[in-house]
């Protein structure tokens, strides 16, 4: 028995922590890690920014975001012989399997996940150069985006943040 009650310290006074993720890949296995980590950061009250660039644009492009693929080609972590990986149907099979695994863990699909992050206060940014490169308009992209930024603007926003490039 201790004298003073044991009360958790939720660190509410730590205001300065900030984190950012640069999502540059458009495959399912590269999309999930950033979103899961962002969700973890937001749960801890950390200011969180995600910047989508290059193939990461597929994560916020309405046409592709619900249909990201996972391919065993060139993936040394997959228990598939390298010569078999490029065979027809392998990517579809691997994608289906990964989606099922995520579903079993109650992890939502990418569009729902982004909505969840947005509800948690996550800032979502599209890269200006990629928007121009892929010729995307605002209504073709996820509705919850905070905006389109060039690299300089993004650098200013993430001043002092820990940043992960994925």
């Amino acid at each position: 028995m201790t004298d003073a009650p044991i009360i958790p310290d939720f660190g509410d006074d730590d205001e300065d922590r900030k984190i950012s993720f640069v999502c540059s890949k458009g495959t399912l296995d590269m999309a999930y890690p950033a979103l899961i980590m962002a969700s973890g950061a937001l749960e801890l009250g950390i200011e969180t920014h995600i910047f989508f660039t290059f193939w990461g644009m597929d994560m916020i492009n309405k046409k592709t975001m619900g249909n990201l693929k996972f391919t065993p080609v060139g993936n040394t972590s997959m228990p598939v012989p390298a010569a078999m990986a490029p065979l027809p149907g392998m990517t579809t099979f691997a994608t289906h399997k990964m989606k099922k695994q995520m579903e079993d863990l109650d992890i939502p699909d990418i569009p729902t996940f982004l909505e969840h992050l947005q509800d948690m206060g996550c800032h979502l940014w599209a890269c200006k150069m990629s928007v121009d490169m892929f010729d995307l308009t605002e209504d073709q992209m996820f509705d919850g985006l905070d905006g389109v930024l060039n690299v300089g603007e993004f650098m200013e926003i993430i001043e002092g943040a820990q940043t992960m490039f994925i």
Partner: protein
Amino acid sequence: MPVTTIGGQEVHVDDEGFLTEYDEWTEDLARELATNIGIADLNDDHWKVITFLRSDFKDQGETATLRRVSAVGGIPTKSLFQLFPKKPARKMSYVSGLPKPAGCI
């Protein structure tokens, strides 16, 4: 396992102060726990979350994540951040007398 006194009641807690015995929790205790972490009044919306968490824990054996509270409990994530500011997952668990959620999302 440390024992601490909250609101005149002796309870078992972990090293951080989260209750470890499901049955030691009472509604009165929840009010004390909330006050401890700066939530002065528990309103109906707080109670809705607490009730869901308690019953879901009983069924599932683990504390629901924010996503589960919203997807299964029907309480929007946005309002969880208003009810339990900044660190809703941990704060709602603490007030409900449950461990922190183990799931990542």
